[in-house]
């Protein structure tokens, strides 16, 4: 058995003196899809942010090993170059930065870091046109500034589009399903499914079981008070949908 793609060991972290993660541990292998579910405030988005490298959090204990390396030591861009991708819960609007320009620069930075030749404008455009089909984006998207004036659904689709172009090894989807109507959800989920290969992994963070009707996880983890309190197969998600979180989180309330 090869080494896991991602190992989170006993991770403790917080912000401004407030502890959010309390000994979170998780292992993922290439080719797997894991879902993390949990009530509001359980630490889902904190985990996503820490994995992507946001600097606002203080890590007090634990380790994150990605492809055998200490992920927490890496700058956000270095993580991206090594295949980590966060689909943001709230994608940032960047008026004035053209989407094509931005994405081409991002892809070429990654290629450069991995010793691959940079794509020229024509090659990039060919690639992008093909990838746009993954999330059914209109082409004029590329001419617009990054996320500026996009609807909530467009922003989420744009995240998955970027994911399609950057081809991450580890994709973290932070509540990508939140705020989407059923059609948008289907497009996004199908996009994610099409990007799945034997060599990459997807960590799907969600508040709603609904997403898991479209994206089928190998494992479902329940996060509560900053640690995983239950892990199961996809049927666990259904059980959560039916019974709510209370039946498993009840005994855990003292942990905070």
């Amino acid at each position, binding site marked *: 058995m090869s080494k896991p793609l991602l190992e989170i060991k006993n991770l403790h972290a917080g912000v401004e003196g407030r502890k959010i993660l309390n000994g979170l541990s998780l292992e993922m292998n290439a080719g797997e899809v894991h879902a993390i579910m949990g009530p509001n405030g359980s630490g889902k988005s904190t985990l996503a942010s820490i994995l992507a490298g946001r600097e606002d959090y203080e890590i007090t204990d634990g380790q994150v090993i990605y492809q055998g390396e200490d992920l927490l030591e890496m700058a956000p861009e270095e993580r991206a170059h090594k295949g980590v991708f966060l689909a943001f819960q709230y994608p940032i609007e*960047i008026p004035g930065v053209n989407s094509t320009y931005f994405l081409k620069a991002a*892809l070429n930075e990654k290629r450069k870091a991995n010793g691959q030749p940079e794509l020229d404008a024509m090659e990039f455009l060919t690639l992008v046109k093909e990838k746009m089909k993954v999330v059914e984006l209109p082409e004029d998207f590329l001419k617009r500034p990054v996320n500026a004036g996009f609807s909530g659904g467009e922003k989420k689709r744009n995240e998955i589009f970027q994911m399609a172009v950057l081809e991450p090894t580890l994709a973290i989807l932070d509540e990508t399903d939140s705020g989407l109507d059923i059609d948008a959800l289907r497009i996004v989920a199908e996009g994610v499914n099409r990007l799945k290969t034997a060599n990459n992994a997807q960590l799907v963070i969600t508040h709603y079981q609904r997403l898991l009707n479209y994206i089928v996880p190998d494992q479902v983890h329940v996060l509560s008070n900053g640690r995983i309190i239950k892990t199961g197969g996809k049927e666990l998600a259904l059980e959560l949908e039916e019974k709510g979180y209370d039946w498993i989180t009840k005994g855990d309330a003292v942990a905070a």
Partner: protein
Amino acid sequence: MTTTMPEVISDTDPRLTSFDRFERDAAQPKWLLNIRKSGLARFSENGFPTLLDEDWRFTNVKPIVELPFKPVTSLPVQLPAAADLVKFHFLKTSETLLVFVDGHFAPGLSRLPAAQKGVLITNLKDAITKVPELIEEKLSKLSTVDANGFTGLNTAYFEDGVFVHVAAGQSVDQPVHALFISTGRETGATSHPRNLIIVDASAQLTYLENFVSLGNAATFSNAVSEFFLGDNASVEHLKFQEQDENAFHIAGLYSDIGRDARFWSHSLALGSALSRNNIRARLNGPGLQAVLNGLYLTHHKQVADHHMFVEHAAPHCESHEYFNGILDDESRGVFHGRIFVHRVAQKTDAKQTNKNLLLSDDAKANTKPQLEIYADDVKCTHGATVGQMDEKAIFYLRARGLPLEIARRMLMHAFAGEIIDRVQHNVIREELDQIVWDRLEEKLATT
């Protein structure tokens, strides 16, 4: 310590006593002398603004007041050579170029266009002999809307400037490029460029004002431009100011816009110790669109001030003001935008935004958007921001693989690009984009 008492202009002030020579000048038409006199009276009444004046509370003009007043009374004998000019921007933008040296027209350095029916492009002095009635009718008719001593001073002392008249239905293909050079040889050397732009119904013009310096003396440019836009006229104006950092620059831009007309006026403030643009637009007919768009890039101890007054005097008009500033070191940006909507101006759509990006802890921005609305069916919005670079946006870019330096650079260019993208004329926009790009790269290289 700043002055808090209104400045009183004494009778022996050279700004009043230097006026003699116009009265003695026999070639001066009577009507023009009267206009000059009214300007002098206005200056004498209003004097220089102080920080007590609400419209000037963020900008202290004391350094200008204390400067010796040395109006340049004739074209300098020692003119810059054509080779001295090559360092200036936009020189290849247009075949039409009017060069003014210390406020005086320099025909040898200029390229006037071939005659075109219905179009007159020349220097104001020449136009006064060619079309005196038109000038008498228009000159200083807009610039009296505000009690501005600087504009009064210009009206009294101007020597020359640009004159453009585009008759109804005519279109000027090439942009009119006016290059105003301060030779910068002597402290207090003062020029008063005076421009009169008349674009009649359904006519079209692109006009570029370019203010530069050769030397680095503390000179003073006090410019006034008046724009008359007829019904359905289309005018794009770009004012580019990169004078020496010891120079002082005040400009008044007065416009009167007819129905269904389109007016873009862009202001790029890069140079000068202190620059102030007084922009006054009167929206006089329904259905017109006015875009006032500006970018100021300052460093060291520069101050760049834009002061706007947009008057909606007719219904169904759109006015948009967009001003972005990138401020470094101990520099300061000032934005004061006042939108006044008359009772008749129903269905007004007025938007005003001012965004400031501070690159240093000591840089400052003063911003004051202001709406005064007397109509009840209007859409008016305003907003202002002052801040450092958006950390969330930087993180977003880094999380996609862009290194920190590139992320910062991208955001800074984007911030400037928002403004530059509104320039309609392709060649001017591209050149401007390059100028600003270079300037920001220089900035990034030193921080």
